[in-house]
């Protein structure tokens, strides 16, 4: 925890739930000395106009990501499994509610 270049506060990623019934969505990042300050800063920076009812913050260095590239072989297996999509199946037009 002591490894901060130039004494900078660590970076946090911020997630906001816009309203009840929605997921928390990533909105940006900020610097804070600790978790509690990160929540308080997130409120001031990202919810000045009722943008949220709940905030999550997580240290950016605690995020594990899929790969260095957004276009990723990790997602390739889902590309050839077309049978996972409803449109893969032919159903006659006159069958209702399908």
């Amino acid at each position: 925890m002591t490894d901060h270049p130039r004494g900078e506060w660590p970076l946090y990623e911020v997630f906001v739930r816009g309203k009840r019934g929605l997921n928390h969505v990533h909105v940006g990042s900020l610097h804070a000395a600790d978790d509690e300050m990160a929540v308080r800063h997130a409120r001031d920076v990202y919810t000045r106009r009722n943008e949220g009812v709940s905030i999550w913050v997580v240290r950016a260095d605690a995020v594990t990501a899929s790969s260095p590239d957004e276009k990723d072989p990790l997602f390739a297996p889902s590309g050839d499994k077309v049978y996972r999509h409803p449109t893969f199946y032919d159903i006659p037009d006159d069958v209702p509610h399908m």
Partner: protein
Amino acid sequence: MTALQVQFDATIGHGDRIEPRDWMPEGYRKTLVRQIAQHAHSEIIGMQPEGNWIGRAPSLRRKAILLAKVQDEAGHGLYLYSACETLGVSRGELTEMLIEGRQKYSSIFNYPTLSYADVGTIGWLVDGAAICNQVPLCRTSYGPYGRAMIRICKEESFHQRQGYELLMTMMRGTDEQRAMVQESVDRFWWPALMMFGPPDDESPNSAQSMAWGIKRNGNDELRQRFVDMTVPQAKALGVTLPDPDLVWDEERGAHDFGQPDWSEFVQVVKGNGPCNAQRIAHRRAAHEDGAWVRDAALAFAEGASA
């Protein structure tokens, strides 16, 4: 050409966004860092000219509005700094580059706010010009920058409307108040036009920025859009825009207008504007005077987690 470059070009070609962990050419990254940092610094330095009037706003209502607006500018700066940091520069480096004069900010904030009417004029003309510049940037090719711009544009409309309403209120007041508004508009009109940058044929980085999808419109096109938007607003307000060459051109379906004094622009960008030294000195003092708070908070956090 490398496979990485081909993939990058294809992404730009499709109008898709580049995201932080994608490969990108070094020139693209450098151009973005320069532009986003300059934009972030402008928001932060932009707090000063208006902050100058918070203590002297004429009513509690006006004070609350101005406080909220200046707080928004701080927020806009922070959105942009966080977008810039996704390109591998740290917040500390960015702040240092600003206070050491190695990165720039918009020349408009080097003009003083001499009267309270300037608060209204800045909202109307300066934020109006900023909106013209920023709306197309919501579609910029770098994802985090575009997302920051979307947040900013949502809030910017409040800024412009509060400014215009302030001026409308003064225009309904005394002759002295109307004169204050006109005097303020006279001072800010040309610097506002300069906010779009030099004419396209003298703007060194424009063509490459357009090719990369960082910029979506030329400086002259946006300046024209701003003038066409503003003329009817000035008429409704009852002020004159201080340009003898400003006339409606029937054939073009747009206004003809004069050129700002570009030698003044160059001087202000070089650091010789009316307030350059004061703005940076103030920012440096705020940063240095706050150092003990940053250190103490970090020491406290480390003690608490030990």
